[in-house]
């Protein structure tokens, strides 16, 4: 079965979720492109969007429609050629509209698993629950009329475990998109020892077609992305504990966040990133990862405490940020959570003590957005971090420690055979987390 035939019938599990909806969008566009090839004109392409709630599926279809319009607007040049033989479609508006209708026509929103029995490919983006994933995979695999391939978007569960428990015979591969899949370039690909090579070949082509970047990772819980992020987050939280000795909880959140954003020139601070991913999601990923890492503990009592009082972070359906460690107003950091007082304290208030404690940013500081696209950014960073080393402030000290820890985590991922190479670790952080420099660098020794 060739690439095109394989894509004739596909199911996305958990399609209405944040990751599932993005994977559905990308897959639908790829299936549409293939369906337009002359040799495929008699084939019928079907993409099942499976989720548990009808309400969520209605929302999903609206989201897909809106996204398809945006995607189509960006590629009208190409679409005018695709519809060149349609004399009735003249304006860009008509062509965009037709494209959206045609892609939507491939998608079938459903709530029952039975439809997936005829799919050659099952993309899974359900919640990060091993038992649930195994149950769905087993059921589809047992009842399928074909021999389906399973691509799981898990960001932490070992693929070999899923393969074994669901008895998939190596017809499984980890294909880990980053959030939001429609925008993020990075896809981590994880094969287990049993994974059949055909699956990797297919996925490489699929990723290439979508103009995304593939980074392979060993089949180790957390893989590269979360392998770094979770440990990085734990360092951020231990920094918070350290800072707390000399300031309030809210001031410490502010300061740790500022160190990991401004001082380190990252796109967001560590607590903003935890909120972005979701405190609940981070807690869950740590729980999944922890049993597999022998020599350290991947667990945060602080995250547990936050969950207990119901502060979860994450995003609303419209993509806006929910409050977590930080309170957001129109996307901006407005206030910081004080666990001891159980209330948010305004940024102006916490900044006074926080900034005083941290001291000034090193000379040569540039915000992340001003430096990330600079072709000579590495020179900027060398100079900047050298300057930082000459400083005696708490901000500089903690930032250098953080930088060192981040590098240590990266190096260990290669040593522990989670990542194949140091370059892969850096690529994941650069493309999946939008860092301006990789953690494995020579800024500090």
């Amino acid at each position, binding site marked *: 079965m060739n690439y095109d035939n394989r894509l004739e019938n596909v199911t996305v599990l958990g399609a209405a979720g944040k990751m599932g909806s993005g994977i559905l969008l990308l897959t639908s566009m790829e299936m549409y492109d293939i369906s337009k090839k002359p040799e495929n004109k008699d084939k019928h392409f079907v993409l099942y969007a499976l989720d548990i709630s009808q309400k969520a599926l209605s929302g999903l279809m609206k989201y897909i429609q809106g996204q398809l319009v945006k995607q189509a*607007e960006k590629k*009208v*040049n190409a679409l*005018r050629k695709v519809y060149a033989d349609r*004399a009735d479609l*003249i*304006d*860009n*508006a008509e062509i*965009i509209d037709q494209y959206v209708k045609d892609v939507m026509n491939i998608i079938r929103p459903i709530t029952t698993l039975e439809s997936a029995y005829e799919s050659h490919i099952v993309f899974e983006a359900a919640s990060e629950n091993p038992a649930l994933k195994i149950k769905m995979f087993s059921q589809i695999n047992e009842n399928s009329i074909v021999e389906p391939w399973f691509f799981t978007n898990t960001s932490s569960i070992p693929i070999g475990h899923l393969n074994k428990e669901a008895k998939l015979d190596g017809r499984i591969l980890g294909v880990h998109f980053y959030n939001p899949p429609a925008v993020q370039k990075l896809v981590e690909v994880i094969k287990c020892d049993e994974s059949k090579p055909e699956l990797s070949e297919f996925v490489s082509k699929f990723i290439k077609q979508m103009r995304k970047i593939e980074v392979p990772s060993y089949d180790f819980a957390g893989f590269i992305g979360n392998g770094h992020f979770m440990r990085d987050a734990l360092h951020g939280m231990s920094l918070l504990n350290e800072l707390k000795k000399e300031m309030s909880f809210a001031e410490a959140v502010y300061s740790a966040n500022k160190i990991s954003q401004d001082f380190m020139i990252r796109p967001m601070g560590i607590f903003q990133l935890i909120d972005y991913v979701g405190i609940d999601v981070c807690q869950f990923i740590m729980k999944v990862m922890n049993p597999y890492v022998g020599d350290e503990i991947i667990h945060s009592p602080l995250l547990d405490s936050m969950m207990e009082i119901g502060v979860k972070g994450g995003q609303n359906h419209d993509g806006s940020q929910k409050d977590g460690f930080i309170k957001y107003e129109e996307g901006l950091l407005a206030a910081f959570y004080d666990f001891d007082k159980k209330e948010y304290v305004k940024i102006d208030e916490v900044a006074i003590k926080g900034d005083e404690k941290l001291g000034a940013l090193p000379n040569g500081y540039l915000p992340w957005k001003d430096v990330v696209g600079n072709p000579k950014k590495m020179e900027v960073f060398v100079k900047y971090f050298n300057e930082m080393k000459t400083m005696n402030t708490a901000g500089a000290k903690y930032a250098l420690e953080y930088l060192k820890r981040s590098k240590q985590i990266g190096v260990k991922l290669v040593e522990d055979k989670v990542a194949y190479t140091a370059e892969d670790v850096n690529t994941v952080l650069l493309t999946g987390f939008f860092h301006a420099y990789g953690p494995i660098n020579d800024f500090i020794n």
Partner: protein
Amino acid sequence: MKLRRKVYMVAGYNTISMGSGRKEFHPKKPRPGLEDYMQEAGQEVLKQIGGAKNVDECVVGNFIAARYNRQGNLAGFFPMIDEGLKYKPAIRTEGACASGALALATGIKSILAETADVVLVIGIEVQNSMKAVYGADVLAAAGWAKERKDGHTHFFPGKFSDRAGKYYEKFGYEKTRLGMATWYKNAVENARLCPTAQEHHNSTEDLLAVGMMKPNGRSFVDNLNVFDCSKVSDGASGIAIMSEEGLKRCGINPKDAVEVIGLGLAENNLTQGPADLTKLDTTKVAVEKALDMAKITKDDIATIELHDCFSIAGIMALEAIGLAEYGKGPDFVAEGNTARNGKIPVNTTGGLVGWGHPTGGTGVHQAVTIWEQLTGRAGESQINIPADRPYGLTINMGGDDKTLVSVVYKKN
């Protein structure tokens, strides 16, 4: 042809050219509509001419509000500008991006026909009502509808990209690109001096480097970069056209007005492509007619407002006028001849690339700019008008060198 009666223009006004580039522009926030621009431009002209009572007739030039704003019958807005315009004759003209100058021509004809002594003329377009990718569909109506299907996503940039491509082929890419980049640089530098210009806030340091950017057909069109293109703009311009009697009635000193001494209109076949992609033939004819009527030559002109919907169109227009030899337009620009301190300052407030291009408003905006320059009202944009060259020239083009209006103005 000759003018059988003296015709003047006076009391010009430009609204801001609103759109991307202006600090106050936000695509998702509500903005003024047609009514607001019409009212602003109209009332500001009326203030300068003693009110609506002095107006005999109104003309509004607009390309395609029917699609941008779901609005036709624009002449009906005049009585909204001022109660005093109720029941007065009003006309709307359309000739794509030359709609504004067609409104001027209509006003001039009314003066010549002695059916009016004072005509209020407004040119207007509000284009930011939709994204540019859909606006391209609307603007494509300036070409032949039957060509749209095979045309480019960005229909008109596509047309002028083909022209630029042919020009590169014939005269070389490097020097042509340098001429086009210099065009952009001049346009923005002039716009910075004019508070109503869309590029007024542009703070790019190395404008020439930006203009030199290599075109990318994948993301836009093959032979033009986005800096070669005029802007998507909302705006209106207004001016009054008068006879000598009209000036007296409004109490206006002729020194505050400019005299219209040449008018050249020319039309070409919409269903046919250009005979030669590297030339603007219709533009040439219109300019010759206007200069003939004015009995002056290109060398007598102090300043020009011409239709640079694309930088390459501006360069070809210089060749059509005869200021630059065929194939030497880019050199003429790169040598600085068209800069504000050059031999013949062109588009002194930025032109379509720098000031903006509210399509139906552009023809009137050009007249207002010339009026300001010849009467010393151009503020920071003011250039020197030599005593032996007291003339200004405008060229307003509709479609791909199809509907042309050229006017010669004289300082009083």
